[in-house]
């Protein structure tokens, strides 16, 4: 029990360090940039006449409060954190007067849903297939599966998503390629809406799964082909322990420990992939919001998306880390 608490403490420390470091980096990027963010943004805004004067005034107020020009760095840094902790990053410029944080919170369930389902599917399928391919090394089906997924793995997220978009958008239009749900259903907890959401999430999730599978497949196959030479596996085979028990309880079970550690390490990267996929499929999550905000020069929303992403990823990693001691009894007693 003591070992478990120690482990959780260490991981929590890491989580806070990641959030602290990531957000400080955000501050530094804006602080050290040769261009004054406030003036740069406002300069570009005043060139556009379709924005109301209140919107511009409100942005100026929020930005000066955060990056208060003329004040020493540590004061600005302090102000920056104070606003962040209050969750107040000012009103969004694109959707004035909606607070930027509210926009992010609206997008978050979509992104997290996509991230969660695709990660779970990818992790399970990739590891299962990789593990079986590592154990049954001469099986043709697993070999073929491996070649396909490994071929897809190095291709950038964007290209894979784009190829899928072309296939399902132009060549074989059977699935919706854009949006989070159909225009003709109203967002509510009803069957048609849920079905529509699922249908719309298929392609984005599918493209994320395709790209992600290869990594897990390769990792698990390599791990398993090492573990099958471990003494405890050879010994169990010598003892005539059932095949299924050996594959699941001895080989895969042991390979799962490093794979869960790896899961924590790739979440950040998968998050980036989700953002890109959303953009390709016009999915209403944080990724699309980020791109729109950049194009609209909406400083508050860009900062809000970045802050929430860093925090969410750090928290997700922490949750995955908590699984580790449950899988590996050695961590618990250390």
């Amino acid at each position, binding site marked *: 029990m003591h070992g478990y608490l120690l482990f959780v403490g260490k991981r929590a420390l890491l989580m806070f360090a990641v959030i602290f470091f990531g957000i400080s980096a955000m501050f530094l990027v804006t602080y050290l940039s040769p261009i004054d963010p406030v003036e740069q943004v406002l300069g570009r805004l005043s060139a556009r006449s379709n924005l109301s004067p209140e919107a511009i005034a409100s942005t100026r107020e929020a930005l000066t409060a955060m990056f208060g020009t003329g004040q020493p760095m540590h004061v600005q840094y302090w102000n920056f954190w104070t606003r962040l902790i209050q969750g107040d990053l000012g009103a969004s410029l694109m959707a004035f007067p909606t607070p930027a944080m509210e926009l992010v919170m609206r997008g978050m369930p979509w992104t997290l849903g996509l991230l969660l389902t695709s990660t779970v599917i990818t992790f399970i399928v990739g590891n299962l297939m990789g593990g079986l391919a590592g154990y049954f090394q001469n099986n043709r089906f697993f070999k073929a599966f491996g070649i396909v997924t490994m071929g897809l793995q190095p291709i950038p997220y964007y290209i894979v998503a784009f190829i899928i978009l072309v296939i399902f958008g132009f060549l074989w239009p059977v699935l919706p390629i854009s949006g989070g749900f159909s225009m003709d259903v109203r967002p509510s907890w009803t069957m048609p809406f849920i079905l529509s959401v699922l249908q719309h999430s298929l392609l984005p999730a599918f493209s994320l799964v395709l790209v992600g599978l290869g990594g897990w497949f390769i990792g698990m196959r390599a791990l398993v082909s090492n573990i099958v030479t471990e003494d405890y596996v050879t010994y169990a085979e*010598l003892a005539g322990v*059932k095949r299924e028990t050996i594959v699941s309880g001895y080989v895969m079970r042991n390979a799962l420990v490093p794979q869960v550690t790896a899961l924590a390490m790739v979440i950040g990267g998968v998050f980036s992939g989700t953002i890109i996929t959303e953009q390709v499929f016009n999915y209403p999550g944080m990724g699309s919001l980020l791109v729109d905000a950049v194009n609209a020069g909406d400083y508050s929303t860009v900062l809000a998306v970045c802050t929430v992403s860093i925090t969410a990823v750090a928290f997700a990693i922490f949750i995955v880390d908590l699984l580790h001691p449950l899988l590996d009894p050695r961590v618990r007693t250390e």
Partner: protein
Amino acid sequence: MTRDSKPDLLKVEGLKAYYQMNYYGVEREVRAVDGISMNIKRGEVYGIAGESSSGKTSFIKVLAAAIRPPLKVVEGTVKYEFKNGPIEVTTASKAQVEDVRWKHLSYIMQGSMSVLNPVRRIGRTFKDFAQRPLGLTGAAFEARVVSHLARLKLPPEVLKAYPHELSGGMRQRVTIGLATVCHPEFIIADEPTTALDVVVQKEVLSLIRDIQKEMDSSVVFVTHDMSVHANIADRVGIIYAGRLVEEGPTRQMFFTPRHPYTAHLVASLPRIGDTTQRPALEGRPPNLADPPQGCRFHPRCPLAVDKCRQEVPPLETVDVDHRTACWRWQDVKPLVGSAHPAGVMA
């Protein structure tokens, strides 16, 4: 000893097992086991000795019916006469081998640190290994395991522990328990005492001996440590470069070795009160991918003559149960006088 009256449990004839490999265009054939014949009787403890990479591990892999590529049996037979019928492991089907595993033929693997699944409780491992061969379930199975563990002086709580929570000696006793819980007729023990400290070693040895006597099983005991053989084996066989070079009753092997290699192994044992410096054996064991002509020991043998370099010596019977493969066995003298080897049972 009444050994002679007992029937053979294992018959090995002309066994050849090679590693055949091909990596990046380099083809290799390692003749790990190159023509070994021997019999082991019911209720006998047979010690196998030899340096590392002498082929002894490959040999017992074949005995344990654990033959898998790149190891391949090229020639010969390995036949067991179990109570439920005979089995020839080099040709037996998978199902036939499964049938005798653990119930009749069991194995104590080298390195107790790594033979237990680190993420499984000991109790689960016992279930995986022994439930099917024992044919017991639930409380009956549990009771059987607990009573067996008690015989090994292990508390029942061990079943709830993970391997890393046990000490080295306890873990070794657990693996012995795992291998013997089904009361097998034939136990193969591969270096079960290496890497243990001397006190635990002694305990483990007497444990194996006790269990063997109680169940009247045969044990093949593999170790490079001659003093362990002196303590436990009825007969000892010496393997050098893939061949059996000498076998005989333990006392004879220690006091009147008939092969220069055995004489050397025995001489290198420490003896109480002996302070003379012993000569080390020159050279290295031969490369099994390209073994020397004739007697494989000749490059390192102090007695080697021309004949040894050209002709392979046959395994000749020189005394009751005592065979050796040496052209000059009559000239082999024990390297040390009559000082008593430490621990040899009188």
